[in-house]
Each structure stands twice: as C-alpha cells, then as structure tokens.
C-alpha cells in the first residue's frame, strides 16, 4: 500500500495528554509532569473541565532557578515530591513524566526515580517515562508509560492472556466475561486497575493489544518472552470478533464453541450498527492524523458502515502493529503518515469530504467552511471497544451528519 509521507507543521497533542485517561485507570497513581507552564496548560486544556480539586496529576513547573543549575533542579524535585506524597498518602505509584523542557536541559528523571525509589522503598514506587512533544505524539504517551512498567512486571510462567492498553473499566469487565465464556484464561491486564498489582509475564504469556499505538510496549514485552497475537483491533463488530477469535485460537478453543459464543454478539452488534450505517453509507471520510487509531477506524467505517475513504492520516505508521488493519482496508486507500498541516487542509478543501475526523483546534474552522467534523479526542475518552459498543461507535460518526441534516434556519 502506497503511503504518503509528509513532514511539516503537525497539529497534534503531545504524549502528556495520555495522562488524562491513564490516571483514571490507576486511581492509586499520581502523574507528575516535570515541565513548564505550557505543559500544565496543555493538560488542563485537553482535560477540559477542572472537576477535581486535587487531581492525581500535576506539573512541577521549572523556574529560572532550576534552569540555572541541575543540582538545584534535582534538589527541588526531591522536595516537591516529598511534599506531594505527604499530602497524598494514598498514592502508591508516582510517575515522573518527562517533557520537552526537562529533556532539553537533560534533567535525568531516570536517576531521579532511582534516587527517590531508594528513599521511598516499600511506600511508593517511582517510575519515569517521557511524554514530551519532541519524542511522543498523543497516544504514544500511554505507550511510553506502559513500556516503563514492563521491566517492573514480575516473572511468571503460567499460560495466560495479557490484555495490553487502557480500556474503560466497564468494557474490560465485559471482555473478561466473554473470555471466560470462550474458555480463555486466566486473563490479566496492563495497565492493571491498581498500580501495585502488576501482572506477571513470561514465556507462557500471550499478549493481545487493545490499542494499535503500543508498539514500544509490545517490543518490550516480546523481550520478556511474551508472544504477541497479531489481530485487528477490537473496534467495531468485525475487529472485535477477529480479536476474540485470535485469542481463542491461540488458546486452542474449538472454533465451533468460539462461534457459538461470538455469533449472537456479532448479530446484535450488527443490528445496532445498521441504523447508523444508513446515515453513513456512501459518505466520504477524511481522517486527519491524531491517535494512530485511524486505520482501525477507517476499516470499521468502510467495511461496516459503508463509508468511502478519501484519506486516512496517521501521525505514525507502525507497520508491524498496523498490518492486520492495513490488510482489511480496500486496495488503493490513500494513507498518509506524518503531517504537513496546510497541505493536508488543502487536500481536505479540494476533496470536500462529508466528514472529517480531526482535533479540537481544527473542528470549528472546518465546520465554518461547511465541512462536518468529528472530534478525534472523543475516541480515546469514550468506551468504544467491543461488539457491544459498535453501535455507539458508529453513532459518534453519524451524529454530526444527523445533526446537520436536522438543522434548518430558513
């Protein structure tokens, strides 16, 4: 498949944004960004509302004194962490999250984590990773966070399935029920719900990725002897079915049994998608690069909702992880990797698609040009995985079109 590689201005969040969903997954963890006011402002703006008085994330904002000497910066960081943990005794894991400024001044957060771990041993575990915009794009923040956890996972030989990537708790519960019905188990998750309950891994572990953006985590797991099960991602009925089937096959489950468990779900999911398909069928879709979920979404929207794909952009194309999705896209799909924003917007304007999936900075300007949009950020904040959510997922894309059709001002 031809891929248009572009470089130029990118309009995407940095990896810090992943904190918004990661911190909800692990309620006993705190994410401390070591960065600037920009970093604090980014997370605040991406998170949207300041519902929590004291959220489990924050930014240690570097000041001029920290820039003057790294010795001071390290001492300051230790002081700040001590104060923070005294205030938040329920915290079991502290993620020190690197940013562009901390990386450019070469503030060694790995060393800082080591130093703090010695001091806090038995109370709080300190882990570090980078969510910086010079290293990571949006969802890659989660990939980096999980990669940092991999060396900490205990060794374990048992035959098990490991689900990799944050799912909404309700979706995960549902998946666990289904795996049980399929006869696949035990099933563990990374990240776990409690940051201290890290799943053991070893050669008996087969990993199934819930998200397509976890390449570095996948490689780190493979280095621990884990087998990766390549599958399309559990978005939409078809992706979910194949995802479950892959796990069931790897665990030697009789295909007839697998089908007996999945068929009713598939039928129900398809029925839920059907009304939205009527809205979406034949409509032309343009996905701007954002979360790396674009190929999987394109596959769902094309194959199950009948949309035509004008262009499928992705910030980064991990061939290994995306191959199962690319195999399902129609031949000749226009894929693009990276971004040159202005040129891409020119293509959008020239193609006049019926729906553009894009970030919040671009949505209203495109709407004002008469082009319907869907915010991509909703796709990482909403439960969209699995057959049971397929209808909801389709509805997310159908809604802007339905709304436009329902408005009249004359």
């Amino acid at each position, binding site marked *: 498949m031809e891929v248009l590689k572009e470089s130029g201005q990118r309009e995407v969040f940095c990896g810090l944004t992943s904190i918004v969903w990661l911190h909800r997954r692990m309620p006993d963890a705190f994410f401390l960004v070591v960065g600037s006011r920009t970093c604090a402002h980014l997370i*605040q703006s991406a998170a949207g509302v300041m519902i929590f008085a004291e959220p489990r994330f924050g930014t*240690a904002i570097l*000041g001029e004194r920290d820039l003057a000497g790294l010795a001071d910066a390290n001492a300051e960081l230790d002081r700040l962490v001590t104060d923070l943990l005294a205030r938040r005794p329920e915290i079991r894991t502290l993620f020190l999250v690197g940013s562009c400024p901390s990386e450019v001044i070469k503030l060694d957060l790995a060393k800082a984590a080591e130093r703090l771990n010695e001091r806090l041993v038995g109370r709080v575990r300190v882990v570090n990773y980078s969510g910086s915009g010079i290293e990571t794009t949006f969802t890659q923040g989660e990939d980096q966070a999980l990669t940092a956890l991999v060396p900490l996972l205990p060794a374990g030989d048992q035959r098990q399935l490991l689900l990799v990537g944050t799912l909404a708790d309700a979706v995960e519960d*549902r998946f666990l029920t289904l795996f049980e019905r399929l006869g696949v188990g035990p099933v563990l998750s990374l990240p776990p719900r409690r940051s201290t309950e890290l799943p053991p891994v070893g050669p008996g572990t087969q990993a199934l990725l819930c998200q397509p953006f976890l390449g570095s985590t996948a490689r780190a797991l493979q280095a621990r002897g884990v087998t990766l099960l390549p599958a399309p991602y559990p978005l939409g009925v078809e992706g979910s079915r194949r995802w479950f089937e892959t796990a069931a096959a790897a665990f030697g489950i009789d295909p007839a049994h697998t089908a007996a468990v999945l068929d009713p779900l598939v039928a129900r999911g398809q029925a839920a998608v059907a009304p939205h398909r009527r809205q979406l069928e034949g409509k032309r879709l343009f996905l701007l690069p954002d979360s790396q979920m674009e190929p999987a979404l394109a596959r769902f929207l094309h194959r199950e909702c009948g949309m035509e794909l004008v262009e499928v952009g992705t910030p980064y194309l991990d061939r290994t992880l995306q191959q199962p999705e690319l195999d399902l896209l129609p031949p000749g799909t226009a894929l693009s990797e990276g971004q040159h924003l202005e040129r891409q917007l020119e293509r959008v304007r020239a193609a006049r698609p019926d729906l553009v999936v894009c970030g919040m900075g671009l949505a209203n300007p495109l709407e004002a040009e008469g082009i319907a949009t869907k915010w991509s950020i909703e796709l990482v904040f909403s439960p969209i995985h699995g057959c049971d959510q397929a209808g909801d997922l389709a509805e997310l894309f159908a809604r802007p079109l339905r709304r436009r059709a329902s408005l009249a001002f004359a």
Partner: protein
Amino acid sequence: MELTLWTYEGPPHVGAMRIAASMEGVHYVLHAPQGDTYADLLFTMIERRDRRPPVTYTTFQARDLGGDTAELVKRSIAEAVERFQPQALLVGESCTAELIQDQPGALAQGMGYGDLPIVNLELPAYSKKENWGAGETFYQLVRGLLKGQIPAPGSPRPDPGRWRSEGRRPRLNLLGPSLLGFRCRDDVTEVTRLLASVGVDVAVVAPLGATPADLLRLPEADANVCLYPEVADATCSWLDRQFGMACLRTVPIGIGATVAFLNEVVELLGLDPARLPQPDRSRLPWYSRSVDSTYLTGKRVFIFADATHAIAAARIASQELGFEVVGLGSYSREQARAVRAAAAELGLEALISDDYLAVEAAMAAAAPELVLGTQMERHSAKRLGVPCAVISSPLHVQDVPARYAPQMGWEGANVIFDSWVHPLMMGLEEHLIGMFRHDFEFVDGHMSHRGETAASAPEAPVSGVWTADGEAELKKVPFFVRGKVRRNAETYANERGIGAITAEVMFDAKAHFSR
C-alpha cells in the same frame, strides 16, 4: 520548581497568540514542539472562532535537535509569509525553543523581507505568564510599527482639545480588548455607544479587530482609553511618553466608574459638561434601591479575578449592591498594587496568588454567600456549595455568550445586576422558603436559584427484576444516562415478558433502542 495542578494563566506565548488572533493581517511564527499546538483550541473551542489562530508552529522534534533547527525555523517563516502574506510578522518561541536558542526573531530579520515589519518577541517562559505576554506583545508590535513616527524629543504634547480647532469631532482609541478576555467583544460596542452619547468617536480599537495599518493611525486620536490594563498598560504608557498622548485609565465597569469615566472624557477633551448623561440610563441603581433588593444587604461576597475585574467587582459589590466584601484577590501579580489598595479601602488584605488551592482555602475561610470569580472559582464554589458568577478570564465556553452581555457602561451594569443576583435566592422567595421550609410539600429542589443543585429525577417504577450482574453492569453506565438505560431495559424486558434483567438483557435492550 513549583507544583501546579490547575493554572489561571497559560505561558506568555499564549498571550502573544491572543494578540495575533485578535488582529487581522498579523501572523505569528512560533518555534515550538507539536504539543504546543493545543493552544489553537483555546480560540476555536472556547471562543468558537471560525478560523484557526494565525499561528505557524515549527513543531520541531527530538530528531531535529541534532540537526539544524534554525533551518526549520527559516523554512517555517518562508512558508508562512508566502502562504499568509501578512502585513506584520511576529516571531517568537515557546518554553522549549527558548532553551535551544535558535534566535528565530533574528533569523527572520535576516531573511530579507524588506518592508515587512517583523517583531522579534522574547517572552521569558520561565518567569512570565499569559497576560504579561499579551501586554508585551501588543507593546512590541505598536512600538515596532510606530517607531518611525516618534516626534522629536522636546516636541510639545498634542492638546487633547485640538479637535475643536481642527473642526472635527473628538476621537479616542480603545486599547486592550482581545480574544479570551472577558466580554471584550460586547464591551467595545458598549463603550463605543457610551462615547457616542457624549459626542466622541472611536478612532482605533486594538488589538481586537485591528490591522497593522490601524495601529499606524493610533497617534491620530486625541487620547487613548486603557480599557484592559493587563493588555494595554505598557502600550498606553509608551504612547504617553513618546507621543504625548493622554490616557484615560478609569475602567467603566459599574455605575460609579462609568460616571467617573464620562467625567474624565468630558474634562480631558474639553466637552460641554451639560451633555453628561444621567446614571439612570442603567436599571441597576433602581433595581438595587427597589424593595426586593433589601435582601441583598450585607450578603457576604468573595471576589477573585484578574485585577481589572476584581477591583471593579469590589466597588460595585460594596457601593452599588450593598454586599459585604469578605475577600478580595487576584492572580495578576503585575497589577497587585492596585488590588491591594482596593482591598485596603474595604479593610481587607488582598490575596495575590496563582495557587487556586490557596484561593479555595481563603474562600472557605471567608464563608461567603456568593463568589465572584473565574472558571477556577466556579469549580471551587461548586465544591463548597456556594453560588458563583464568573466575572473574569480564565474562561469556559459558557462564558462567551451568544447574547449581548457587556460588563462596561450602562448595559454592562444591567448585565452585572442580573448575573450576580440570579445565583442568589431572590428576596421574597428567600423569605417564603424560610417560612414554608417545614411544610410537607416542601422539596429542596424548589430552591431553583440557589447554586446549581438539580433535583434528582424520580426513578421509574421497577418492572422486571434486576439480577446481580445486571445491576453491576448498570452501575457502570455513566450516572447521567443510567436512568434512561434502566428504563429502556425494563421496558424491553416487560414487552418481551422477560422476568430477570441480566447484563445480557441490558445489552440486548441497548442494541434494540440504539436503532
């Protein structure tokens, strides 16, 4: 190093973006990593702007750092100039680029753009913040454009009354309104009307809606109005020093300030004082004197905002509404002195802080009945169960209303009366609720004006019986749709004669109703 959970202000380059995005014909090339592009959404989402801010980000990555980031800067500048054809170019860096010292401003100046005015913005990201960045950018831009016009030292100051001898109407510039400022769009309209009522024209409004060419015309006005000191203070002082332009510094928010503002205008421009309108142009004075407002007497109010709005609110609350101000503060360190003075007049010590937890603690300690604050205080007040009206940036999308809702002038006073008093229980209503509180019909939800506590909807009568796993699944549904999911599942079960509502039944129903 300072721990920040939520912040009142963004970094200084966001202030620069506010200036660029407020104006026409200005483009800003910002040396910054990709994540910094989040700032676009402040404009396109909060302000619902129909176009992206005129900003080109270099979005350099780690792999560029080894190579030539300066080349990347030049390429971005060249592309931006070519594509957007700006009349003035701002060039600057965000926090990260400041550390790698590519000097983008100097690079731009060396690119041979001849007549294109280029402003090199150096905004120290590790010590300054958004409002300072906005003020500095506006000042640098005005200075950069006007430096060729500065009169020779020792030239006489122009007479603000010269309009008479020049045979024209007097005219003033309105300086400071910008995007993401509080109600600036409508304040400009209101102040323009206010000035028209005394026969004064508006020459240039800037930065909001101005072009670089408009800024070149600033010295043609008889004087400047510093509407928002956070943004325009430095510029007004410079125009005063270099061009001898007088500046009106009373911000016309509230009746007293509007009257004082008009008096100043009339005096400075040498207008006929008989033309001054009466304050009864606004309903606030009468509404405040009317008997229902007796109940407002001595209401305890806590105020925290940018300096301009905090000072104005304190005066209105204490003098025009008869509230008792029990706390006053601001996150604007640059204007701390004025806030301290306003607090001292009320026998209070001003809280100058950008730590919203300290503000929340002060709020709780003051035990107010009403909070006037920013989006941050709205959240804090909600947690404390105290009604709140937002009076200042930082904003949420709901603070940019569709209707005309200025803060300044006569209409601004009307808007303020309504929006501060509505969150409180109205006078007679409060009295009646006190009287009838013990009656059996009394339901707390009737106190509709108090805070934002909505009465919980009654649950539908149970039909099918929920199994444990069904209930467990239902609990995972977000609370605001749970009632609907429950009702749908029960209807579905009823219609099909299903006795036990399991998780499966719930999912079946969900799929059924999603049709």
